[in-house]
């Protein structure tokens, strides 16, 4: 156990001197430390066992094993904060491992904003169970009643003072051998000294000084550099390869397995040149739908069927005579993860085992997939997480890992695969397009009547263990089949009182390109439609948008975020659109409110915008957000996640749409798939509401959901025209201004 602890990529060195910041512990992750971790043998990883998560070391430190991984969202400090607090030990005594199938429990993919609310709470319960056991051991050891003992600084001590016993003395080299006890008492939040503090993230100093080892920087001594040549059309088959085309390049080897075509070389630049130079002939393929008719295509199916997701309220009610009925369609396009660094992985596949270093958000979940296509027993396949360029669901990381694994198996050497920009934009799994038809009515008093939302969305294939990968499919190897866009049907019903609410999913059998969960799967589109349509109803009733929402809302936490947001905005109560519509530049403000998945984080968002009538350009001047995710573990971490959620989703709303012809993705670089720039980033004002006695909820994506509606509502307030199609390009704004539907 100690050998493992010493090889942790965390160290307890004081990192920054000179008083810039006090860092309790640091994460450096040198290549040697990753290699040392990779050389350790497997340990029990049962998520039901305390020993799966926690090991007490002889030197007084504790090693934590976390199945959830840090993608830059700060779990590397937040999870140790939770465990250190609950155990009763200093944060400086924690060693930490993440996302290694041989060392860390399977806590599921790091997705759905559940790193803290599920993963962290498992670890909290493991730590509470461990603390209870340590107190019981100390009770015997010190001959004292458990109620007279306290745990602090890694010691169990009598409350009356006197000698205590250290964790390592009490456990004496043994394991806990305990199941997680759901009834183990948790610490009273009023006594917290570590949870709730804005402690710095341990990887930040290394990231700011160029010492953090990313997946892209990891290397094995004897590895080759691989590049996969993807076909010019999504479904094209390989007909012929001209091997002579790369003869001039030293040491290049071509690997062809059915339609999987790749090269390997001793150095990276040669690999890049070979991939560019290699000539291959592919079949024609034009199986994608026509993009200009995508909405018609979605309505046409084919479908698995319709599912009534929500059906409540008074079915027999007739509309009052003064009711105004509205209908509107909203569309959210297909979008890319657009990770800043193209995906990368290293694999070392031997005759009887495989080790894969990957930035995957789900190392455990992919183990079976890799074992299947490599033809190895599951227990002989190890995936080790190494942080990559930011990923927001599932980008190309897993595909790059599959590329590397298949190549390593083929050439019997370790192989590193680095995707190109064109690979990443062209082939990362996409957030699928979503179409929503909304209908509803409002009476003269502002009551919502007969709400209905119809969603045209792809259905997740039932029973699919994980997401299909490109390389095994191309190579004709065993691969899963189906779609997994994530849980994209939530939040279609309004969080406000309505006489009747129906939400219907028209489950599509397919979607233009391979889908995957993209940050806050489905909710940015659904909340764009729901909260824009609420604004349409408020405008039809001639009511202020904040007041309209508050009158239909009963949840006190929801009411509080809206009121706090309105106070921060200095919200002037009046109906939209604004009566003061400027000539050249029109100014407006908008709101959106989201209770994430109707059960998680509460977010109210307000925006101030300026719209240039001539150009159609939208300038977002300020975004205000009140955010209640229950108990806050690390306020600065939550704040960073809320900032990122807002800015990334603003980018998606203002600029992003995957363009394709019948064969392939067309916008495969940053000039054709632009994202938000510094000059376009608005001022952010964020208010975090901490509720220490409530369960902690996810903070990584809830603030994404309302961005489209808050912006669309602000634009409507400014110019009196409604944007119902994302992205809000200047062309679309001009069309809306001219009264044409977008």
């Amino acid at each position, binding site marked *: 156990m100690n050998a493992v602890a010493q090889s942790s990529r965390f160290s307890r060195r004081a990192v*920054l*001197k*000179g008083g*810039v*910041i006090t860092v309790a512990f*640091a994460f*450096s992750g040198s290549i040697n430390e990753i290699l040392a971790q990779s050389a350790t043998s497997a340990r029990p990883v049962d998520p039901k066992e305390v020993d799966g998560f926690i090991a007490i070391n002889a030197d007084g430190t504790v090693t934590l094993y976390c199945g959830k991984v840090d*993608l*830059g*969202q700060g779990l590397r400090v937040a999870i140790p904060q939770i465990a250190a607090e609950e155990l009763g030990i200093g944060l400086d005594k924690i060693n930490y491992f993440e996302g290694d199938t041989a060392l860390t429990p399977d806590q599921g993919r790091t997705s759905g904003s559940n790193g803290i609310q599920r993963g962290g709470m498992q670890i909290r319960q493991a730590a509470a169970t461990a603390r209870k056991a340590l107190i019981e051991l100390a009770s015997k050891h010190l001959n004292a009643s458990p109620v007279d003992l306290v745990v602090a600084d890694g010691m169990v001590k009598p409350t009356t003072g006197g000698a205590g016993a250290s964790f390592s003395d009490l456990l004496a080299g043994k394991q806990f051998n305990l199941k997680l006890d759901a009834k183990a008492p948790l610490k009273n939040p009023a006594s917290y000294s570590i949870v709730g503090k804005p402690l*710095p*993230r341990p*990887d*930040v*100093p*290394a*990231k*700011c*000084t*160029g*010492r*953090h*080892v*990313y997946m*892209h920087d990891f290397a094995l001594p004897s590895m080759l550099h691989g590049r996969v040549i993807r076909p010019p059309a999504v479904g094209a088959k390989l007909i012929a390869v001209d091997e002579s085309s790369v003869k001039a390049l*030293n040491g290049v080897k071509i690997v062809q397995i059915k339609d999987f075509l790749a090269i390997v070389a001793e*150095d990276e*630049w*040669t690999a*890049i*040149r070979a991939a560019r130079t290699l000539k291959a002939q592919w079949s024609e393929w034009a199986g994608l739908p026509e993009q200009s008719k995508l909405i018609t295509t979605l309505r046409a199916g084919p479908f698995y069927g319709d599912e009534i997701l929500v059906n409540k309220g008074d079915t027999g009610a007739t509309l009052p005579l003064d009711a105004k009925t509205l209908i509107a369609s909203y569309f959210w396009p297909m979008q890319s993860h657009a*990770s*800043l*660094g*193209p995906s990368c992985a290293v694999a070392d596949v031997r005759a009887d085992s495989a080790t894969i270093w990957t930035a995957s958000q789900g190392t455990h979940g992919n183990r079976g997939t890799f074992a299947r296509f490599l033809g190895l027993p599951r227990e002989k396949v190890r995936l080790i997480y190494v*942080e*990559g*360029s*930011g990923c*927001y669901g599932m980008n190309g990381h897993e595909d790059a890992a599959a590329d590397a694994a298949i190549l390593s198996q083929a050439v019997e050497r370790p192989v590193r695969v*680095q995707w*190109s*920009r064109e690979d990443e934009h062209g082939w990362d799994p996409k957030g699928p397009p979503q179409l929503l038809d909304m209908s509803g009515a409002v009476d003269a008093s502002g009551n919502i009547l007969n709400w209905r939302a119809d969603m045209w969305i792809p259905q997740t294939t039932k029973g699919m263990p994980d997401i299909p990968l490109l390389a095994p499919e191309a190579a004709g190897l065993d691969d899963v089949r189906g779609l997994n866009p994530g849980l994209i049907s939530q939040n279609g019903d309004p969080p406000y009182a309505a006489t009747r609410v129906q939400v219907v999913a028209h489950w599509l059998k397919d979607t233009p390109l391979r889908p995957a969960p993209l940050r806050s799967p489905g909710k940015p589109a659904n909340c764009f439609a729901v909260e824009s349509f609420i604004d349409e109803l408020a405008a039809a009733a001639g009511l202020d948008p904040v007041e309209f929402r508050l009158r239909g809302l009963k949840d006190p936490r929801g009411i509080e975020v809206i009121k706090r947001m309105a106070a921060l905005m200095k919200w002037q109560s009046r109906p939209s659109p604004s009566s003061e519509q400027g000539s050249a530049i029109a100014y407006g403000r908008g709101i959106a409110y989201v209770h994430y998945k109707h059960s998680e984080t509460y977010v109210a968002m307000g925006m101030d915008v300026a719209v240039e009538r001539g150009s159609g350009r939208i300038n977002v001047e300020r975004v205000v957000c009140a955010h209640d995710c229950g108990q806050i573990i690390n306020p*600065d971490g939550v704040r*960073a996640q809320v*900032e*990122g959620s*807002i*800015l*990334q989703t603003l980018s998606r709303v203002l600029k992003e749409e995957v363009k394709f012809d019948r064969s392939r993705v067309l916008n495969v*670089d*940053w*000039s054709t798939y632009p*994202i*938000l720039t*510094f*000059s376009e*980033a608005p*001022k*952010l004002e964020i208010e975090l509401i901490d509720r220490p006695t409530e369960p902690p909820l996810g903070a990584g994506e809830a603030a994404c959901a309302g961005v489209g509606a808050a912006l669309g509502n602000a634009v409507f307030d400014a110019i009196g025209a409604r944007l119902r199609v994302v992205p809000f390009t200047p062309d679309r704004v001009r069309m809306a201004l001219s009264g044409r539907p977008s």
Partner: protein
Amino acid sequence: MPSYNIRVNGVARTVDSLDPHQPLLFVLREIGLKAAKFGCGLGQCGACNVLIDGRVTQSCSTPIDGVQGKSITTLEGLGSASVPHPIQAAFIKEQVPQCGYCTSGMIMSATALLASKPKPTEAEIRSALDGNLCRCGTHVRVVRAVLAVSGQGG
């Protein structure tokens, strides 16, 4: 194999490359300086930014034969975690990076800006960083860090 003499972070080096068009980025990464990142290879994202004779340059689009005799600074050359450069210290204090893949390029752009303009306005900072893309959404913290290090912190 043709060789090239360059200064990297103050140290004279001779590096070999079979291809005069090999981008500086890959040469730097081969000699173990991996702070500069491959983002696009097209000069569009700024993740590979380094300083060449003090000017911020995209190393993914700079061939090795174009930097013969020149002086190159990478993020590693500015400072370390124990002795950070003031800009690095400001980025650490503001807890700027999330994934941090773009951070190296951001700090290099900010370094060049502050060398030519010690007290830039917020608009000048944003403009100087428009060639650096960030997908995690750390923009406001980057601007705050650059304002702080130029003595204009709030």
